[in-house]
C-alpha cells in the first residue's frame, strides 16, 4: 500500500481564465509558472503570456504589456508582472509605476532564477558566460541558433560568441535531457559548459506572496 495515492483525478490542473490575480509573463516563463501553480494547488491565478521571441526585440514588450493591462484592468483583483527589465531600459518600470502594478525584481530571468543577490555575487566571474535556462536549453535551436541567423550564416558565430568562454546552464528542474541539450548547445558554440541548479528562485517566493 502506498501512503500517497495520487490518482489522475486528484492531480491539480491549471485552467486559464479562472483566478482573480492576473499573472502577465514572458512566454519563456510559462511552463515554470504553470508547474508552480499546479504543484502548489494555487487557485488565485490566471496567466497570460507574451511571445518569448520578443527577447531579441525588447521594443515590442512595453506597448504589448500596456495593451494587456488595459484589457485586464477591472477584470482582476490585481495584476503581477513576471518580466525582467529585459532591455526595455527602465520603460517597463515606468509603465508599471504609472499603473500601480508590481513586477518581480531583477534585470532578467537569469538573475531572478538564480536569486538577484546570488547573481550579483557571481557577476564578476560570469562576464564571459552565456546563460541558458530550461526554456532556452529546450528551444536553443529556434530562439538562439536560428534567432541570431546562425542557421543561415554559421560564419557569424565568432562575431556573436567570440568573446564568450562558457555556457552556464541555470537549470530550473533536474532534467537530464535538457542538460544534454545544453551541453550540445555549448559544443555547437565551441564553449565550455557548466551546470548550476537554481530551481525556480525568486519566482516561487514572489508567487507565494500573491497566492493569497
Amino acid at each position, binding site marked *: 500500500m502506498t501512503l500517497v495515492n495520487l490518482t489522475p483525478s486528484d492531480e491539480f490542473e491549471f485552467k486559464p481564465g479562472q483566478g482573480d490575480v492576473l499573472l502577465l509573463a514572458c512566454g519563456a516563463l510559462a511552463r515554470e509558472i504553470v508547474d508552480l501553480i499546479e504543484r502548489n494547488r494555487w487557485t488565485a491565478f490566471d496567466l497570460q503570456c507574451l511571445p518569448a521571441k520578443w527577447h*531579441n*526585440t*525588447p521594443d515590442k514588450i512595453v506597448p504589448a504589456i500596456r495593451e494587456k493591462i488595459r484589457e485586464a484592468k477591472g477584470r482582476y483583483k490585481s495584476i503581477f508582472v513576471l518580466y525582467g*527589465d529585459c*532591455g*526595455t*531600459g*527602465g520603460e517597463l518600470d515606468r509603465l508599471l509605476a504609472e499603473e500601480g502594478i508590481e513586477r518581480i525584481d531583477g*534585470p532578467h530571468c537569469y*538573475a531572478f532564477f538564480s536569486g538577484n543577490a546570488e547573481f550579483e555575487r557571481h*557577476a*564578476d566571474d560570469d*562576464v*564571459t558566460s552565456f546563460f541558458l535556462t530550461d526554456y532556452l536549453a529546450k528551444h536553443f535551436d529556434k530562439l538562439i541558433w536560428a534567432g*541570431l*541567423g*546562425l542557421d*543561415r*550564416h554559421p560564419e*557569424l558565430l565568432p*562575431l*556573436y560568441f567570440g*568573446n*564568450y568562454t562558457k555556457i552556464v546552464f541555470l537549470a530550473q528542474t533536474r532534467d537530464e535531457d535538457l542538460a544534454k541539450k545544453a551541453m550540445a548547445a555549448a559544443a555547437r558554440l565551441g564553449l565550455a559548459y557548466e551546470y548550476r541548479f537554481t530551481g525556480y528562485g525568486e519566482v516561487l517566493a514572489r508567487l507565494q506572496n500573491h497566492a493569497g
Partner: protein
Amino acid sequence: MSDDGELDLNSLNDEELVQQVHDDLYDGLKEEVEAAVHILLGRGWAPYKVLTEALVEGMRIVGVDFRDGILFVPEVLLAANSMKAGMFILRPLLIATGAPRQGKMVIGTVKGDIHDIGKNLVGMMMEGAGFEVIDLGINNPVEKYLGAIEEHKPDILGMSALLTTTMPYMKVVIDTMKEKGMRDDYIVLVGGAPLNEEFAKAVGADAYCRDAAVAVETAKSFMARKHNQMASN
C-alpha cells in the same frame, strides 16, 4: 555576364557599380564588396571617395532599415562584416593618401558588458567619416578608459552598454573624469539600445546617440563647436 550567370561587376559603369556595392552591402555579400572596391580603385577612384560614396553610404542605408525594423541583427552584422572587409583594403591607402581627418575617438563597451556589435558599427562609421578610432574592445573598467585617454589624447570618448545592469557604469567613468578635473576636456558620447537622452543627461554625458549615423553627425557638430571655441579664445 560571366559564364556562371553571375553579374560581372566589371561590366558596370561607375554609377551602377556604386549602386551594386550598396545592394551587396545590404545583402551582406563580403566577396562582392571586396571585388567592387578593387575595381573602383583600379578605375582611379580616390580611396576616400570609395569609402564614403560606396561603403559609408551603403551602410547608412542598412542603418536606416535597421532602425525602421526592416532589417534585423543578423543582416546588420553581415553588412557590417562586408564593410569591414572593404575598409581593410582601403585603410592603408587612406593613410598613404592623407584623407581628411575629423578628430580622434576612443571607444569601448563598459565593464561587465561584452556586447560589441553596435560599438563596432559605430567605430567603423566614425572611421568612415574620417575619425581616427581607438577601440578598447569590451568589458572596460574605468582605468582602461583613463589610460587610453592619457595615451591617445582623443577629442571624443565613446561608451557603449547593452545591459541595464552595466549602463550605470558610465557614470562611474564620467564621475572619475570629473574628480580628476578632466571631464570638460573631452566630448563624451554614449549609446546602446536600452539608453536614452534622459539617461545620458543624468550620467553627465554630452549626448546619447541612437545609432551610428547619429553618432557621426553628433561627433561632427561637437567637433565644429570645439573648433569655433578654440578660434574665439
